[in-house]
């Protein structure tokens, strides 16, 4: 099993899982404070039909073009969610529910059609559902790395701007920041991190890699910078751990193991997180109780 660490291809796959996790952790942090955790789930499901349609048009598995297809269909999904909200009485969560299931259902339908009609070259398409990091080839890894690095860079250089935008958008506008531009960049990053992640993690579970590291990080810190770094760290560790575990069995999907690793980190944060983990809260309460008793119920 240790062989995998020495094969250059496996090292590339691991490295890209790490970078993907870091990028997803960081974008997830933005999504968390934009109150759009669920949006990432809707968008990742909405990416599936784009992948399949792109494959049908080009007839072979060519990742950059399939990523483009995924991005287009996720953006159409995002636009439709907005459109439904502003043109009807339907609320955001319902709109997301509709788009998520309709797009995903349509994607699965297309996948079935492709599997029936095309020859052998469509094999591996279903890895987009649960993710198969091992199915990635060198060029896939390059594409993923390039996009992930652009995302990480965009968040790092605009750190101060993202913080202001997420905390107080009206004040930001008052200072002359274009909230439309920031929202557009944010949405592009969200869609990009989803589409580069779906081959490794799969459309169903991609959202977990955006949501779980961010919320776990929130249990540890009072600072946005630290939350961003921790979320990136948790995402990266989950990506690597999940990929390693999934290579232990023949044909094990990567996505579920990445999510499982992220969940273990979440559980740990939830229990012993320094800021408001359950255990810390309980201990603080016990200390207070004891002090109260010592003081005989008087005010300290």
């Amino acid at each position, binding site marked *: 099993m240790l062989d995998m660490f020495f094969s250059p291809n496996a090292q590339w796959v691991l490295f890209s899982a790490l970078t993907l996790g870091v990028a997803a952790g960081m974008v997830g942090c933005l999504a968390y404070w934009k109150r759009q955790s669920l949006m990432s789930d809707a968008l990742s499901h909405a990416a599936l039909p784009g992948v399949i349609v792109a494959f049908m048009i080009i007839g072979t598995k060519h990742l950059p073009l399939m990523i483009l297809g995924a991005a287009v269909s996720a953006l159409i999904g995002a636009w439709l969610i907005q459109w439904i909200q502003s043109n009807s009485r339907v609320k955001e969560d319902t709109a997301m529910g509709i788009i998520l299931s309709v797009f995903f259902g349509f994607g699965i339908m297309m996948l079935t059609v492709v599997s029936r009609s095309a020859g052998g070259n469509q094999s591996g398409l279903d890895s987009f559902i649960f993710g198969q990091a091992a199915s990635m080839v060198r060029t896939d890894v390059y594409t993923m790395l390039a996009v992930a690095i652009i995302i990480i860079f965009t968040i790092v250089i*605009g750190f101060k*701007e993202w913080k202001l935008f*997420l905390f*107080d958008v009206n*004040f930001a506008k008052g200072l002359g920041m274009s909230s439309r531009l920031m929202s557009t960049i944010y949405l592009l990053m969200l869609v990009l991190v989803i589409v580069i992640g779906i081959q490794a993690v799969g459309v169903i579970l991609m959202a977990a890699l955006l949501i779980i590291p961010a919320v776990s990080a929130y249990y540890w810190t009072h600072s946005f910078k630290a939350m961003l770094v921790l979320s990136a760290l948790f995402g990266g560790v989950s990506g690597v751990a999940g990929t390693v575990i999934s290579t232990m069995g023949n044909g094990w999907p990567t996505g579920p193991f990445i999510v499982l690793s992220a969940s273990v980190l979440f559980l740990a944060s939830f229990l012993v997180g320094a800021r408001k983990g359950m255990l810390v809260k309980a201990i603080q309460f016990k200390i207070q109780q004891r002090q109260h008793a010592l003081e005989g119920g008087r005010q300290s």
Partner: protein
Amino acid sequence: MSVLAVRDLSASYHKNKVLYDVDFEINQGSLTGIVGPNGAGKSTLLKVMLDLHPKLSGSVVFFGKNLSQTKTRIGYVPQRGSVDWDFPTNALDVVLMGLYGKIGWFKWPSKKDKALAMASLEKMGMADYANRQISQLSGGQQQRVFLARALVQDADLYFMDEPLVGVDAATESAIMETLKQLKENGKTVMVVHHDLLTVEEYFDHVMLLNKTIVKHGRTDETFTKENVQATYGGALRWMKEA
């Protein structure tokens, strides 16, 4: 000298027109209270003037120029409830945000910037809380942080949306003291205010608003029983008689 001239301003929320025919001028060094019933469009007026909410018609001129040319001279204090105080950051960091326009986009705040922010916190009596997580501040302290953020901008014209709501008496007098100092330094301040009992004490000018301006002028001339009743409808009992 007029620092703000608003002409024929109107705006709507969804299907309802919330502001119409709003027309006024504000002179430099005035401290104006915007007063009116719930839904009178007080907060909307501030937002429309600052382009945070679209206007249906009208024009807004700051210092003889348009908003984009004068943004650095304008300070805005949003309602405290408009942000999520669970956001992971501390008081000093929030005040620093007031300097982001001057620091420049994509640059990091310098030590000097931090010193400026710290001095501003100190002015609001909040120096001891600089590193406190903002969710652990009381409502009054959060409001002081917002004021400190506005002060550090060193603007010439300030808009404040209900800065006195939900704060304790000490904070209220600290905030009013700050506003008076701003006025003494030649700054102009407009404040959305809800407490009719303190209008005369706090503001030299008052704008009585109910979707349009009922009356606007010096407080001693404008804040009369007739005008206030015209703004709120007949249901209001004039407190001076009580």
